């Protein structure tokens, strides 16, 4: 067993910990791993080129950019915020939990690329979440960033823990194919059904977290209301005082 290719993994870990340019880290890791495995330069370049080209589908989201960019220039995000702000009863928790459930259901039917960070989160879900979070009390920049991150996280969780219930999904077929080559024959349906308990658990856990996040927002808004009587200068001098 040749353990030297593991050097490539070490490069990845070190690169991400040191926050180097991720693109460079990944390229260097590939080169290191291939050289450590005793591959020649010609084979290495061909392997890099072939693998890169065969993974082109991952850049498909680029096609949404002209549409999203144009609509944003004409105020799509502002409109999405105003639309959500128009609903008196819309809260951040209701919006995100509804999106989570919908995303899981759609993924279960194989409609995985229907939504996504470029297609729906940036132009629609993130601005709507900001509007819902700031409905009662305006939110500061740090809170706004946390709301955006939560919106993106909700999209990921909804997608991941729905797609494996879909029969023709690559993951199910990968599992079935693996067993098939080992002489264990399974129906895709029997694999997909066993993804349901985890899907349900994912929905419950993340929905609870969303609700908690909203309670935290409400509590902070209350606290700030209490503090608003005190002069602003007070807080600033306290923060800046040398210890």
């Amino acid at each position, binding site marked *: 067993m040749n353990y030297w*290719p593991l050097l490539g993994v070490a490069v990845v870990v070190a690169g991400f910990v040191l926050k180097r340019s991720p693109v460079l880290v990944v390229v260097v890791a590939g080169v290191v791993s291939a050289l450590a495995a005793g591959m020649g330069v010609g084979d290495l370049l061909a392997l890099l080129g072939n693998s890169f080209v065969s*993974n082109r589908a991952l850049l498909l989201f680029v096609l949404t950019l002209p549409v999203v960019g144009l609509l944003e220039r004409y105020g799509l995000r502002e409109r999405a915020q105003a639309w959500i702000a128009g609903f008196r009863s819309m809260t951040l928790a209701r919006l995100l939990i509804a999106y989570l459930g919908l995303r899981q259901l759609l993924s279960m039917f194989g409609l995985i690329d229907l939504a996504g960070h470029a297609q729906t989160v940036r132009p629609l879900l993130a601005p709507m979440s900001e509007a819902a979070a700031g409905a009662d009390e305006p939110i500061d920049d740090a809170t706004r960033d946390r709301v955006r991150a939560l919106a993106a996280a909700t999209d990921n969780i909804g997608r991941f823990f729905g797609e494996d219930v879909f029969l023709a999904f690559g993951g199910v077929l990968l599992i079935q194919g693996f067993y098939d080559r080992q002489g264990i024959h399974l129906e895709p349906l029997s694999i997909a059904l066993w993804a349901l308990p985890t899907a349900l658990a994912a929905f419950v856990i993340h929905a609870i977290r969303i609700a908690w996040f909203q309670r935290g927002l409400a509590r902070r808004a209350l606290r700030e209301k209490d503090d608003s009587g005190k002069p602003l200068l007070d807080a600033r001098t306290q923060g800046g005082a040398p210890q």
Partner: protein
Amino acid sequence: MIAIEHVYWLIGAFLVVATGLNLRERRWAMAAFWAVLASAFLFGDAIQRAGANGARWPAQAMGLGVIALGLLAASGKMQTARDSEGAASVRRAGAQRLGNRLFVPALAIPLVTLALVLGAKYLRWGTTTLIDPAQPTLISLGIACTIALIVALRTTRAHVPQAFGEGRRLLDTLGCVAVLPMLLATLGSVFAATGVGDAIAALVGMVIPTDNRIACLAAFALGMVLFTVIMGNAFAAFPVLMAGIGLPLLVLRHGADPAVLGAMGMLTGYCGTLLTPMAANFNIVPAVLLELPDQYGVIRAQMPTAFALLAVNVVLMALLVFRVH
């Protein structure tokens, strides 16, 4: 018939436009970056065909291009143009004037994709289908983006060059992060080809007590998470951990149900996907798209859900895997 290759050419054409616009503004590094990427889309099919016919130089040239992408990204010369003054007022005026009509093209992307996926079987010309049945969703997404762009142009009364300009603005904002998903998948293939997975499986096999089925299950679950975190992809982790622990120890020795173990083991790996910057398209790209100051902001938001779900999943596996027969 529309094949996935045509969608790739469309992406290539857009990247060529982005290259041209950056050349005009003398931002050479950015222009070179998109030019290399465009060549992967315009010549990808040709490279793969040449490889099948035994010609290796096109793939090797692409490999050099991949290394060039890494160097360009590290050069620190890929600054983007700032948002122009007065853009905010244009946005507010547009939101006022166009109102909810702005949602139509945005929602057209998912809805047209859905309609095309469902209708793919019926869209046919004689015996050939309009959409290549090998990749219906991705091709439908490509067509839906084109239709949505036409609708958006009609709604906003903007011109085509403006749409490409705005698209390129977003592309430049993403910068080199845009290719990270492709590069990470490439790294996954390289790791597979160099035997990294086998080496890790061998190491794991050395340290676990194989007589205890719960210890084996825990090693399998944590191995799935750890390996997914390293590779950025549960699909890459699955065959390695199944071959190393799942099949020989859990299924064959301790009688685990293969269907339950497969489905839940894969989803255990997904908890790892929520935790890793290696899954760039899910965790890093949105952080940049949403202009978060912390590139790990989305991972931080996912972390509590991932760990809670991991714990629940391991308990569910321990309860279900050995009981169902």
